[in-house]
């Protein structure tokens, strides 16, 4: 449950576990934005390997962070999304805005 935020080079890696809904969204949005500023990162990677559920509140957080880093010339990516999560993301069109990678390592290679 919950999420972990860490920095590698100029990438902020956000791992979200469990259910990414309204309840998690409110906290996650705030914490990620604080870290983007504090860590001075350029890109953001959402590691969704431990995610079991997402709805439009969770997707909204991802989209909002995508916009934020894009404004500063950075990029956003998704890694490890399980099939059911990927499906919801595809309906939302988020997959047309940012690339999906099978795992964290290959996403890092691309962003880094």
């Amino acid at each position, binding site marked *: 449950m919950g999420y972990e935020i860490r920095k590698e080079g100029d990438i902020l890696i956000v791992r979200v576990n469990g259910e990414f809904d309204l309840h998690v969204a409110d906290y996650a949005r705030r914490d990620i934005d604080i870290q983007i500023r504090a860590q001075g990162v350029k890109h953001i990677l959402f590691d969704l390997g431990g995610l079991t559920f997402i*709805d439009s509140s969770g997707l909204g957080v991802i989209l909002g962070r995508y916009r934020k880093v894009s404004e500063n010339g950075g990029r956003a990516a998704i890694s490890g999304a399980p099939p059911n999560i990927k499906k919801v993301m595809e309906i939302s069109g988020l997959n047309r805005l940012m690339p999906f990678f099978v795992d964290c390592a290959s996403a890092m290679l691309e962003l880094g």
Partner: protein
Amino acid sequence: MIRNQMRLEFLSCSENVGLARVAVAAFASGVDFNLSDLEEIKVAVSEAVSNAMIHGYEGATTGTVRLSASLSDEALEIVVEDDGKGIPDVEQAMLPGTGSDPERLGLGFVFMKSFMDEVDVWTEVGKGTRVKLLKSLPGNGSHLANL
């Protein structure tokens, strides 16, 4: 014929969105929905309940959200209700990306419509909103319900 029925009422605080999902999933567990159907029902419920909290009660955690579910031989019917601010223009609200909040996708109703066989909204400004979500049971011609 109604085979089973439940009603759930809870405060409009965001930790109860998970409660609503879990209760509906447990209620629907007697039906042979496949896993992906169940996932989709959970997303739809999550959207309707989140909307009641964010938009209906504008984030206040003291409102009451009512959810009822009933199971007939044909379908699972879920109703999510709030006594919040209501929707002035439902048709417009149901279009993708027309939400009021830049942090939201405006896809709540789009998800409900893609994942359920029927979505109906009753609303009155200043009174509240009622969203009915219907999912046909497996083998009950869910393709027909989409016509």
